[in-house]
């Protein structure tokens, strides 16, 4: 390559840099091109939402940023360092409750803390309690996981992901399985926590309204092969209300564009 003198100029200010990422999966019957030449930069403290129909590779991209998957081709960097594996600076929050049923709520939040840095037991305890308080569940710290509702479980998962103080939070449709009312509460929570703690957040969803409500930028993916099609800046003031009219206007526009791709896919 001619321009092989490292990533291009503006990567220095980017928290996450993804260049020309391709990834395919071999299933028993066919080869799926999950990502095809995806390039994306995410700034420090930015809230980016990846939107697209299922199978467009957005979760794969998240796994690659987390270091859980490796790309076939391309460059992935965090803070200028190539991502070689999972790390405590990039924590993942999953769609299904990935809480450990053999631990209490507190035990779950402590799990990542014990793995991360040189805190002693008292400091870990204090941190865990602080983050449980932050998500409003300190009262439940000695509860068992199965005693919590779906929304509470995802709150605990959020506390567990926040506790080791990652600089990047990766969220893979974290509210997908929740009812609308619980989701709205969590939109408020996540915006509040984001503005207080200035994390870089990459948020995967197929819900356009959710993306507009949360993101500084909404990035639209199309499937087969997974590619970035378009991106939208959302300059609305925060905190945002999912039911606001301004927000709906953006969401309508993005949905229209998204539908265009899906119809092209069907026609093609």
């Amino acid at each position, binding site marked *: 390559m001619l321009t092989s003198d490292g990533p291009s100029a503006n990567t220095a200010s980017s928290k996450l840099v993804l260049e020309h990422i391709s990834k395919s999966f071999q299933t028993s019957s066919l080869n799926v091109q999950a990502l095809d030449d995806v390039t994306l930069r995410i700034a420090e403290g930015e809230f980016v939402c990846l939107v697209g129909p299922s199978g467009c590779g957005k979760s794969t991209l998240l796994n690659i940023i987390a270091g*859980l998957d490796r790309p076939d081709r391309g460059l992935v960097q965090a803070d200028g360092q190539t991502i070689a594996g999972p*790390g405590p600076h990039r*924590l993942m929050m*999953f769609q299904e409750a990935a809480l*450990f049923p*053999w631990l209490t709520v507190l035990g779950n939040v402590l*799990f990542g803390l014990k*793995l991360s840095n040189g805190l002693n037991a008292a400091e870990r305890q204090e941190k865990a309690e602080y983050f449980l308080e932050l998500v409003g569940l300190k009262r439940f710290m000695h509860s068992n996981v*199965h005693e919590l509702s779906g929304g509470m479980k995802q709150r605990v998962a959020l506390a567990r992901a926040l506790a080791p103080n990652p600089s990047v939070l990766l969220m893979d449709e974290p509210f997908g399985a929740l009812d609308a009312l619980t989701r709205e509460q969590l939109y408020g929570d996540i915006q509040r926590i984001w503005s207080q703690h200035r994390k870089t957040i990459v948020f995967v969803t197929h819900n356009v309204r959710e993306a507009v409500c949360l993101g500084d930028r909404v990035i639209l993916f199309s499937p087969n092969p997974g590619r970035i099609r378009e991106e939208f800046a959302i300059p609305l003031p925060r905190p945002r209300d999912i039911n606001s009219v301004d927000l709906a206007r953006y969401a309508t526009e993005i949905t229209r564009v998204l539908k265009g791709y899906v119809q092209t896919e069907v026609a093609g």
Partner: protein
Amino acid sequence: MIVRWLSASLFFLALLAAWHLAVKAKIWSPLLLPSPVSVFDYLRSAVEDGTLWEATVVTVRRLLIGYGLGILAGLPLGLLTASSRWSQDTIGVLALGLQTLPSVCWVPLALLWFGQTESAMLFVVVMGTLWSLILATDNGVRTIPPIYTRAARSMGSTGLHTWTHVVLPASLPFLLSGMKQGWAFAWRSLMAAEIFVTILTGFGLGHLLHYGRELNAMDQVIGVMLVIVFIGLAVDKTLFAPIERFLHRRWGTGRS
């Protein structure tokens, strides 16, 4: 709670009464069906002269050592078969095959290999425990939702830490049922071995049972059978039941 105790006691009293009435009715010869009182008398005299206690100690010691060895070997082997295809195709298949072999079938082999020794007894118990424990561990590890290990990995857990802090605790419900099954097999195989073979280094409960038959002492036969049942119950209530209660509470499974 009291009601539960009462109704349970009532049930067992009724069983005793039925037994007593059956003896009173003289349907069978008292040589074949001794009365509850004579069985109790045998048990009391066996406790008093120490034979029962000695036999119980011999049997339980063999059982605990053999069972412990079986778990110690079975757990890591089960983890191994679950983690590599090669060991699944080799050790896994071996375990599956040998698990179907009734453990009493190991007795002749054990006698030829080890002679009439403690080692022969232990060998039979280990063979009874090992295979089912390998299979249960393997099954438990394979049934863990992959999301647990992914979540743990994303938090920086690797290698041995993932095994000890995620894979093992996540498969605990399966491990427990495997350990219960292993215990049942160990218990059965040891009794079979003790009834079959006289080992001069120690007379276990199986021998007492065997000599009861030789002497036509039906009170002894039934008495020792009762002791064996009680030991089985006691182990379940003290060893497994607390773990089961913990699992049900944590996982939210089963009835409380």
